[in-house]
């Protein structure tokens, strides 16, 4: 399977924060959701994909090309949406289009107008007077109007109301119908991903914990509930993190098959949601 993004052993250090040895691939033609708590390093990783930050070590390749020699070719093929508004806030959409459109060889005015109509966006109103949802729609319209093969979005659903979040996810699904496109987006609202993601990459404290298909995540991770006496130093090894209460334990495993083999019917095995996984993995770090 072809990879659109490849990070090899990427490390970036800041004062008091670092992203370490990130090794991961974004597969072509799929939606990859990028999750992790605030400050886990998601934005840093995305910025390295956009060449806004240069890694201290390691390699970043997009479409099999590196930024040193192919910066323009790479960026021609990316549509980007960031958390905040990056467009000149005093300008209206018409003027912003005048600045952005000529940067792309493949800019499509018709497509842009199509999205402007679809999103019901005013062309003559200054960006700073847009609501958060409208700003997001405007960024999206711009990101989608040059036939980008890869759409990178940093927290596109943050601060949006549930109705618009759902509209956005529907739109993204629509975009994926033509199978050549790839979408990579970060979020901390994990329920967004249940609806749309094919792959989930999970980051925590600057490290990539996993990057698996949603089926693999559902297969491997599970919440296990049972009596405390079932736990000993041996059986505990099959869990990522355990919460004990007087009534019994509740734990997360990343190998539900093994747990099933060991405990059989003596425990209750439930599907772990992404939120469960994030919660337990976070707790795990604190306990160590």
């Amino acid at each position, binding site marked *: 399977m072809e990879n659109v993004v490849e990070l090899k052993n990427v490390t970036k250090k800041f004062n008091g924060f670092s992203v370490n040895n990130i090794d991961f691939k974004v597969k072509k033609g799929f939606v990859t959701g990028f999750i992790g708590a605030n400050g886990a390093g998601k934005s840093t990783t995305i*910025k390295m994909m*956009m*060449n*806004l*930050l*240069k890694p201290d070590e390691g390699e970043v390749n997009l479409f099999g090309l590196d930024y040193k020699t192919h*910066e*323009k*070719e790479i*960026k*021609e093929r*990316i549509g*980007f949406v*960031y958390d*905040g*508004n*990056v*467009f*000149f*806030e*005093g*300008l209206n959409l018409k*003027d912003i289009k*005048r*600045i*952005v459109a*000529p*940067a*792309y*060889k493949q800019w499509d005015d018709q497509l842009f107008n199509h999205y402007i109509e679809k999103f019901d966006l005013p062309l003559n109103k200054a960006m700073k007077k847009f609501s958060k949802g409208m700003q997001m729609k405007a960024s999206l319209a711009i990101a989608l109007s040059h036939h980008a093969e890869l759409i990178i979005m940093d927290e596109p659903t943050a601060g949006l109301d549930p109705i618009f979040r759902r509209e956005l996810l529907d739109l993204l699904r629509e975009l994926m119908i033509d199978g050549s496109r790839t979408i990579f987006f970060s979020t901390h609202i994990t329920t967004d991903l249940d609806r749309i993601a094919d792959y989930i990459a999970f980051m925590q404290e600057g490290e990539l914990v996993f990057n698996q298909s949603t089926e693999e995540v559902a297969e491997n991770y599970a919440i296990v509930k049972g009596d405390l006496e079932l736990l000993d130093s041996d059986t505990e090894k099959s869990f990522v993190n355990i919460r004990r209460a007087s009534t019994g334990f509740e734990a997360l495993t990343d190998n539900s098959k093994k747990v099933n083999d060991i405990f059989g019917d003596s425990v209750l095995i439930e599907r772990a949601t992404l939120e469960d996984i994030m919660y337990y993995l976070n707790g795990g770090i604190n306990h160590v």
Partner: protein
Amino acid sequence: MFNLIRRDVILQKRMLLLLIPFILFFVLMGSHPALIVLAVSIYIPFNAFYYDEKAETNILLNSLPYTRKEIIASRYLGAIVYMLLAVGLTCLFLLAFNKSFSLTEIAIGSGLFLLFAALTFPIFYIFKPGHLTTIVIIIFLAFAIVGQLAIRSIDELLPAVTDFMQNTSNTVLYTGGAAIIITAYLLSWVASTAIYLRKDF
């Protein structure tokens, strides 16, 4: 590249309209033509830094298919383009109001602008976004101090300068001056590019 230069016109539409009364004011005040050219040339490129120093602008420009070298090049080439525009407008207004001026005066004004740009542009790229006020204060203080020193020592300097001027032919003086300014401008361009290439956004 051309698009990057053109963006200043789109961004500064309203400011550009103010440019006309701005020139008019200087012309009617009877300011020295070299000073008018200098002030008017500074107008657009330095207004542009108001946008350029914002983190969002840098994230936007660097996410678009431009290289960092092009972004800096557009600033340096753009400054020349807008300077020529300023020179044109100034000459036009001077002619319209029957004020006398010479090509030498215009050349001195342009030269001073290029020198000023060469000295100040890299400062804008050294600082992290959001420090525009600090930068402006630093530039202002630097020039105030240099100006003070120059005025204080003008009595000692003046004879030496006039001596030098008299003993050097005009051609040598002008080509020498032009060479110094062009070198300074190019060095400044190289320095800004080197700084910008290392930045994180």
